[in-house]
């Protein structure tokens, strides 16, 4: 469309000159951001896209769907509109992201053929004249093209359409060459004979880690994230990623993290190249250790946090929140966060186990402020021998307007076996505005 035609169609059209070089630079910055955040294998796809190999990285974001929707939302937060697709092959996800009008598409494994059959032939990353030529022949969709005999097609348009079709359906490998910047610290080892035994792999990983930490020490850096790429003889590639809570260049710790998972590598017919990259490095300065003469030193547990965190455990500490509502009084913080120093100021007894969902109970109780005499919980009738309460907790109207009048009255009760429970009544017992007057058990004391 020419500029004059566009101006005729839209009033007050603002025209800006295209700046392909700046666009490319911005895309590269975005690719480097994705490299740190999402997966070790990220590359630029055409002039307007990124391709990310999410295999083995999606569970860190809660699955493929959450990964792509989270990615789109984060980009939207930065003022970028994007569309994303997850599929088995680069070709298929390239086509689906560009040609479907929805924001996120996730195609489950093995469903690629069904998903791309109806797409137009321009989805195949073919030159414009080939697409035009196919249209002259009456071939509009990928499905039609894939049923054509290959020989006449190749005779007329060259090998390109067949190659692109095979790439889309995953019949031909299409490795993604990840982007690299000059400041990334990278070491590699080529093998004259392919290796395969886990012990051998571990041995070379240790050597590579030694070289990497020497390089990091030269630059005064410590690694926060390390990627190990394994190139196999059949031209496929796998990767291991090790994340660290604090910058590290201690070879023993780094190699333990990587060698921990050497068993998960499938060497196939052999490995011909190992590459180790410190994707994310931060300045690390030598620190003077104080003498332990005065007070006993508390061991640093960051190595343990790294080991467990890389195995997929969720590590956290808890910290107090100034809130009377019990389920809001605790928040999770990172395991290696600096010490908070303070604990909960509440002096009233609190249950050891708190149920995420308070459980309904049937009670016999005198309103408004007597504890129950009898309650039935989980099908068992319990007689209350002793009780303490009520401890009244008001809703936090500054968080949610619905809690403006909400009240909970908590009671500590003890049954005839000596088991102690934390019960509450929604509402103050007089005014129905304050709650439903139903009773719940919220926790169990020791």
């Amino acid at each position: 469309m020419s500029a004059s035609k566009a101006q005729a169609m839209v009033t007050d059209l603002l025209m800006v000159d295209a700046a392909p070089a700046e666009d490319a630079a911005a895309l590269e910055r975005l690719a480097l951001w994705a490299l740190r955040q999402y997966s070790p294998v990220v590359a630029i796809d055409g002039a307007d896209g990124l391709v990310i190999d999410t295999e083995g990285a999606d569970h860190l974001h809660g699955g493929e769907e959450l990964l792509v929707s989270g990615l789109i939302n984060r980009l939207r937060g930065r003022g970028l509109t994007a569309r994303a697709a997850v599929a088995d092959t680069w070709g298929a996800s390239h086509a689906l992201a560009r040609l479907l009008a929805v924001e996120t598409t996730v195609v489950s494994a093995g469903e690629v053929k069904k998903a791309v059959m109806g797409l137009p032939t321009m989805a195949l990353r073919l030159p414009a004249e080939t697409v035009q030529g196919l249209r002259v022949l009456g071939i509009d969709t990928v499905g039609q093209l894939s049923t054509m005999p290959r020989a006449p097609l190749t005779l007329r348009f060259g090998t390109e359409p067949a190659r692109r079709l095979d790439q889309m359906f995953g019949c031909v490998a299409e490795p993604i060459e990840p982007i690299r910047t000059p400041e990334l610290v990278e070491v590699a080892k080529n093998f004259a004979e392919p290796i395969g035994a886990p012990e051998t792999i571990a041995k070379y990983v240790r050597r590579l880690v030694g070289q990497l930490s020497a390089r990091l020490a030269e630059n005064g850096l410590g690694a926060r994230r390390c990627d190990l790429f394994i190139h196999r003889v059949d031209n496929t590639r796998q990767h291991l990623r090790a994340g660290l809570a604090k910058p590290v260049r201690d070879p023993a710790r780094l190699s333990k993290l990587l060698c921990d998972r050497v068993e998960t590598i499938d060497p196939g017919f052999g490995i011909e190249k190992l590459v180790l990259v410190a994707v994310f490095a931060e300045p690390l300065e030598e620190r003077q250790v104080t003498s332990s003469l005065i007070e006993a030193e508390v061991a640093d547990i960051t190595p343990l946090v790294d080991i467990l965190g890389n195995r997929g455990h969720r590590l956290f500490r808890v910290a107090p929140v100034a809130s009377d509502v019990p389920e809001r009084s605790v928040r999770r913080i990172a395991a290696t966060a600096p010490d908070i120093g303070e604990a909960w100021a509440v002096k009233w007894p609190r249950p050891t186990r708190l149920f995420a969902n308070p459980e309904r109970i049937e009670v016999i109780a005198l309103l408004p402020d007597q504890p129950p005499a009898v309650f039935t919980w989980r099908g068992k009738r319990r007689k209350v021998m002793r009780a303490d309460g009520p401890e009244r907790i008001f809703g936090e109207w500054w968080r949610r307007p619905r809690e403006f009048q909400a009240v909970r009255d908590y009671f500590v009760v003890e049954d005839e076996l000596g088991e102690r429970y934390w019960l509450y009544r929604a509402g103050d017992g007089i005014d129905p505005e304050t709650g439903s007057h139903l009773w719940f058990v919220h926790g169990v004391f020791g």
Partner: protein
Amino acid sequence: MGYGCLHEVAGGGGGTVDGAAAALFVAGIVARSHGKVLWCMTRPDLFFPAVAQAGLHPDRVVFCESDREEEALSAMEEGLSFGGLAAVVGELVRLPMNASRRLQLAAEKTGAMGIVLRRWRRQNEASDYGQPTASTTRWRISTLPSERLPVAGVGRARWLAELMRVKAGACAEFEIGAPDAKGRVCLLPTAPGRADQTARWRNLAG
């Protein structure tokens, strides 16, 4: 309870499912130690303000939540063999002989205290607690009616702590009061209808 070995603690009655009393008992013990504590679990329903009231500061505890029981076991073993931790607590349903032996050996090597807090899905599954394991001691904490107050109300919680098994020692039962703000349990001097407890406690300690 000694360092460098594995202990098992379970609740009695309804406590076999929620393990509330047992968790507080464990919290009181690890509160008396020095250093960081790793607390492994699969069901995150521990309410930390209660544990903090037993003297365990939140800065000292690193929680490790796993999806599966076996992963929690491996995290416990890694924590015990790490060294530098005061105690490693794990909330587990099953504790097979091999797993308990691995944990015991790891604890012996580094001198950290390993505590397995047994919690079952249903109360009738708790008969599993009779199966032999390699742990040094085995406790069962059941609730008793709380301390009597001169006024209406719930007093300090009381527990029946049964030492069901101990390597090279005799089993015993104690009636104790729940941990105070420094994690100390109190031994009730005489229990109604029972012999003097303190002498037996001293025998055990000596």
